[in-house]
Structure formats: structure tokens, C-alpha cells
């Protein structure tokens, strides 16, 4: 029970916490307000309980694939929230100190959605198994250890990102969030395949090189949704999502740099 809890909690916590630590460190670097963060987490925790407690009903919807469809919807929404946030944060790199309420809302939404997705599973797990007294001790201590490891890892990550200059940190953060957002799309496609909304198949199999259940495999899964044997549809949609985000971010960066140089030549 102890070890199982540790593994389950780490797996769920890492994904959401990584996203939060990258966004937070970028805001810190750009002196964008970080106050939105606690509201995002709070909304996410409330949403987790609500989503988790309604999971039975949601699962029965759409001919029994409601869980897959709602999961995929959440993941695609996170992708678009991250795309928007990165664009705006890049803009802030060039014209700092402009107040942007929409950006704060979107970042809070990204965090809330990420917490709901992972938190609902933890809620289902904890609320079901805490009823038996013999497993309760292992369950709680395992969860505490899992939470501790997950959060420490992300705190380290947060400070590591703060050690760069702000320009580098924002570019690195945008790159990492592109991978995170792409991973969301990849996992969303996995859900749609499971629901038989997308065709299944195997493009390649890298499980002998890097098994999904190994430690690096799990870390890559948390970071970018690593899948050892993705289907062709998954790969195609993933590539399109990454390219769209990269193109959009490059365009935004280039525009920001141009408007900044126009601004400085005006003042001269």
C-alpha cells in the first residue's frame, strides 16, 4: 500500500506541479503578478473533488466513453491556455510592466485544469481506500512521501529556472511549456483513441530503448506525455500541435522584438 501510494501520488503530482513551477518562475522573472496562482490551485482542488465525485456519472455518458472525452477536452483546453500564456509572456519580455488581467486569468485556468485532471484521480484513490483501517497508515504516509518528493522536485526546478537571465529563462520556459502542451495533446489523443474516436495503430515501439515504467520514462511522461508506442494519428496531431505552438511563439517573439526596436528608434 505504501509504495503503491507513493508511486500514484508522485505520478499525478509531478505533471501539474511541473507546469505550475515553470509558469511561476517565468512570472517571477518578468515581474508579472504571482497572486493568481493560489486561486488557480484552489479552484483546481475544489474542481478535483467535484470532478472526482461525479466520475461515475461522467463515465457513463456518451456510450460509456465520457471519462475519455472529458479528459481529452481538459487536456486540449490546457494546450490552448499554455499557448496563449506563452505568447503573452513573450510579449511581456519586450514591453514589461503592462498590466494584463486576461493573461492572469488564463494562467490560473491552466493551473486549475491541470490540478483537476490529476487531483480528481488522487481524490478517487484516497477516498476509496482510506475506509479500510489496515491500509490507512500506509496510504497516508505513502501519500505524504509522494507529495514531498513531487513538490521538492518542482521547487528545485523552479529555482533552477530562476538562475537564468530573464530573456533566457523566458525562452527556455516557453520551450518547456511547448513540450508540456504537446504532451497534453498527445495524452488527449490517447484518450480519444481509447474512446474509438481516433484510429489506433503503432508508429514505432521504443519500449525496449526507454520503457514507460522506468524512472526516466515516467519523468518524460510527466514532462511531455512520453508514449513508447504511439499511434500514427497521435504522432500526426502531436506534430501539428507542436509546430502550431512554435510558429505562433516565434511570430509573437519576432513582432515583440520589432515593436521594441521601433519604439527605441522613435525615442532616439
Amino acid at each position: 500500500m505504501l509504495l503503491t501510494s507513493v508511486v500514484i501520488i508522485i505520478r499525478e503530482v509531478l505533471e501539474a506541479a511541473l507546469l505550475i513551477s515553470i509558469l511561476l518562475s517565468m512570472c517571477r522573472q518578468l515581474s508579472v503578478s504571482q497572486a493568481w496562482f493560489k486561486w488557480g490551485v484552489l479552484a483546481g482542488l475544489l474542481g478535483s473533488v467535484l470532478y472526482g465525485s461525479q466520475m461515475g456519472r461522467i463515465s457513463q455518458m456518451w456510450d460509456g466513453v465520457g471519462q475519455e472525452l472529458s479528459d481529452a477536452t481538459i487536456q486540449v483546453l490546457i494546450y490552448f491556455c499554455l499557448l496563449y500564456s506563452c505568447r503573452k509572456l513573450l510579449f511581456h519580455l519586450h514591453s514589461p510592466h503592462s498590466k494584463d488581467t486576461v493573461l492572469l486569468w488564463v494562467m490560473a485556468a491552466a493551473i486549475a485544469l491541470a490540478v483537476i485532471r490529476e487531483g480528481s484521480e488522487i481524490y478517487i484513490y484516497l477516498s476509496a481506500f482510506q475506509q479500510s483501517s489496515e491500509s490507512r497508515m500506509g496510504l497516508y504516509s505513502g501519500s505524504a512521501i509522494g507529495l514531498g518528493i513531487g513538490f521538492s522536485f518542482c521547487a528545485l526546478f523552479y529555482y533552477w529556472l530562476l538562475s537564468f537571465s530573464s530573456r533566457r529563462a523566458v525562452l527556455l520556459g516557453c520551450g518547456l511549456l511547448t513540450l508540456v502542451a504537446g504532451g497534453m495533446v498527445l495524452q488527449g489523443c490517447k484518450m480519444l483513441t481509447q474512446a474509438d474516436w481516433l484510429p489506433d495503430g503503432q508508429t514505432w515501439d521504443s519500449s525496449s530503448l526507454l520503457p514507460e515504467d522506468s524512472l526516466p520514462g515516467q519523468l518524460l511522461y510527466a514532462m511531455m506525455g512520453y508514449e513508447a508506442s504511439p499511434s500514427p494519428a497521435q504522432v500526426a496531431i502531436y506534430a501539428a500541435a507542436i509546430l502550431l505552438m512554435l510558429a505562433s511563439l516565434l511570430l509573437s517573439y519576432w513582432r515583440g522584438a520589432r515593436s521594441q526596436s521601433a519604439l527605441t528608434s522613435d525615442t532616439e
Partner: protein
Amino acid sequence: MRKTAIWWVYLMAIILLPAAALADKPVFNLEIREHLFSPSELRIPANTKIKLLVHNLDRTPEEFESYELNREKVILGGHKAVIFIGPLPPGDYPFFGEFNPKSAQGKIISE
């Protein structure tokens, strides 16, 4: 006019064919009882998409998970879940219950 009619037929065929395909997928049943899968080995036809019905007879939830099949789904206690699998090339595809990984293990054999 006639061209449009043909296009409409194409369009309807594209929309309706997957729905028709959906209807005749073979159904396989799997039960979870006392954190064990039964049967623990499920034989399915190779290269065919199947509809797996997992019935969780325990009071506690379980997460059906398989790295080889790329599937994961939470099944609440007393609930039945639909999971589409395949088409799979012949081979063994292990799966497990993430909430009870020591006991809840099984594999799908595609042949």
C-alpha cells in the same frame, strides 16, 4: 446538380460507415473481483478492434492500465467500463490495476 448529389452520397458514406463499423465490434468481458482480474488471460482475435467491458465487482475503484496497449481508465467500484482495444498485431499485451498493482495483473493475447 448530379455532381452535388454524388458528393452528398460520399459525405453520408463517410459519416455513416464508421457508425456501421462501430456496431459489429466483438465484445469481450473482464471482471475485477478482490483486486484480481478474471480471466487473467484474455484471448482476442489479431488485427481486429474489440470492445472490452470491464466490470469492477469490488467496492473500491481500480485503474485499468497498460503501457503496451496505451490504455488507462479509472473504473469505480460496482461500475462497468468500456475500453476499445486494437486492432493489435499478434502478441502478448500485459495490463494491471494501478491501485493494486501487486495482485491485479493480467494480459491480453492477440492471436
